[in-house]
């Protein structure tokens, strides 16, 4: 593992030095956990700090670090007796995380999180600077109740991949919000497999009395996990199709010499790939070539709707 850069190491040191000074005798292991650092890296940096201080760099003007039985004491680090203020990046990130969690259904709007955010925003001189709209769909609280009680849900769901509405019974395990949409991870009894459902695509939902025994590992926080045997395709995207990287879970990407971006992604259903290819248009290079035939057929099928559209369809519209 390569050594971390000096900027981040100093940033961390400017945080733990005042903390150790006010919590003398803290263990190296506790410090490693609190400050997200490998114990070996922490020990290495603590060995360097006794060379830090002020002229004339006599013992009383240098930081003193004592490590006894893997516990740490620090003296003469008065220059760094307070932690460094929050940077703008840190301020925004902290406010965003707190504000977002406060908006998640189930959070106490008057609890300690709200109190912390008010004090934080005031200290940062940024009251009302950061807002988060978590866009929680109505069905979310029902899903959360089901997860908490380990109960089943019956729902009608709009399946994006199949472009169709289906009714299912699911055993929900966890919810997550990823880039603007809420997902529920569940064992689907119709599919006899794990599935990820967009909560806003749940059209009707009912909390059932039936409790289920968990078959899925509830700690797995992955939002999209392609199945091992889902087919993979490789696409060469023109630079203006970078939105594909933002929208789809890409497994590999590589910049080609001509500026195109080569991406590999797992394909869960043929419709998913057709949809992507139709949006990109025929100039996209895609392998394997068999998928092109499928996309051409789908384009034909959609065109047929336009050829079938008679004047009667137009007449049915108000103009």
């Amino acid at each position: 593992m390569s050594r971390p850069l000096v900027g981040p190491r100093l940033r961390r040191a400017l945080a733990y030095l005042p903390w150790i000074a006010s919590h003398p005798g803290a263990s190296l292991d506790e410090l490693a956990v609190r400050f997200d650092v490998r114990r070996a890296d922490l020990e290495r940096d603590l060995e360097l700090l006794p060379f830090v201080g002020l002229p004339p760099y006599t013992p009383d003007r240098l930081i003193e670090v004592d490590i006894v039985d893997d516990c740490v004491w620090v003296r003469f680090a008065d220059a760094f007796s307070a932690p460094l203020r929050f940077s703008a990046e840190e301020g925004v990130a902290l406010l965003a995380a707190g504000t977002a969690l406060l908006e998640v259904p189930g959070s106490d709007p008057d609890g300690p999180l709200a109190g912390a955010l008010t004090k934080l925003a005031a200290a940062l001189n940024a009251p009302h600077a950061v807002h988060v709209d978590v866009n929680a769909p109505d069905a979310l609280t029902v899903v959360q109740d089901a997860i908490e009680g380990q109960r089943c849900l019956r729902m009608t769901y709009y399946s994006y991949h199949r472009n169709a509405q289906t009714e299912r019974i699911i055993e929900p395990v966890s919810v997550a919000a990823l880039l603007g949409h809420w997902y529920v991870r569940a064992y689907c009894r119709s599919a006899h497999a794990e599935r990820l459902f967009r909560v806003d695509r749940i059209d009707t939902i009912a909390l059932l009395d039936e409790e289920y025994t968990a078959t899925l590992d509830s700690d797995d926080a992955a939002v999209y996990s392609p199945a091992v045997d889902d087919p993979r395709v490789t696409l060469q995207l023109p630079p203006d199709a970078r939105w594909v990287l933002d929208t789809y879970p890409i497994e590999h990407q590589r910049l080609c010499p001509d500026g195109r971006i080569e991406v590999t992604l797992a394909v869960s259903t043929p419709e998913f790939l057709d949809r992507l290819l139709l949006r990109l248009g025929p100039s996209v290079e895609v392998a394997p070539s068999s998928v092109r035939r499928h996309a051409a057929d789908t384009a034909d099928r959609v065109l047929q709707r336009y050829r079938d559209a008679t004047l009667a369809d137009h007449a049915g519209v108000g103009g």
Partner: protein
Amino acid sequence: PARWLRRACMPDRLERLATLAANLLDTRIPLTLDDIAERVPGYPPDRASFKRQFERDKATLREIGVPVNVETLDHLGGEVGYRIRPEEYALPPLHLTPDETAALHIAVHAIAIEGDDARAALWKLGGTTQTGIAPVGLIPSFPALATLFDAYRARAAATFTYRGEERILDPYGLVFARGHWYVAGFDHDREAIRSFRVDRIDGEVQIGPPDTVERPADLDVCALVTNNPAQFADGDAIAVDLLVDAPHVDEARRRYPDATVTPHPNGAVVTVPVTSVDAFLGSVLAFLDGVTVLGPDTVRAAIITHLEDCAQGFA
């Protein structure tokens, strides 16, 4: 100094950086380059290399948020000096209760902000030994966000390039909604309130002079962003009619919240205000044969042409 003479190797840059910071914090009078060369061990002896290394160190300190001030020293005939003012350096006391600190830790673990800035902020509060909080959300991060935040705090206008045009904005707030960051504020050119997608800002944001912005009181910044998508792209919206098959009507309502929906034997006719036809057609294609464009003729012709290209080009 004795310890330095015993060193066999060059000091690690961490030592030099930390010692530089300590000296800049300790001084009342700004230190000149000569002062620094004299006081801070670890710099190369030749002047040019020293200056280069010092500039690197200064940049690194500023990158991690240390406020290194450059001040002109009148008593030295205008020479430049450097210092860190302790009152600017230190984290002000937040007076957080243990519950409040714990709540922030939970938030940072439950909502993952791209990058390590949220976690680094927690270190300044002493970090946490809490484990087992599963992430429930993910929010992306962009460099422009921090600069816009600074502009907001300074009550200064922000200047940036957006879709090739220079815009000047009095920031009223940063909003994360629908998976994207937006900055909302008063646009100087349009003389109206506008929202901008932060990830579509080209290059760097410039901050104008402080204390020039007056923010209206009681402004619902979230509503500015979430209720007015028509204000994102400039240009007039055209009404596009879609014939949506029954199974897709609910999804069409979700996809196009500003549309009007009229029942039809097949499902519904959905009329959508569109400013960017290309982007819109991309979303229509996602419905495959479940949705057809009825009009206007130009938009219908555009999607038919594209589909014909696909039918021939992919074959």
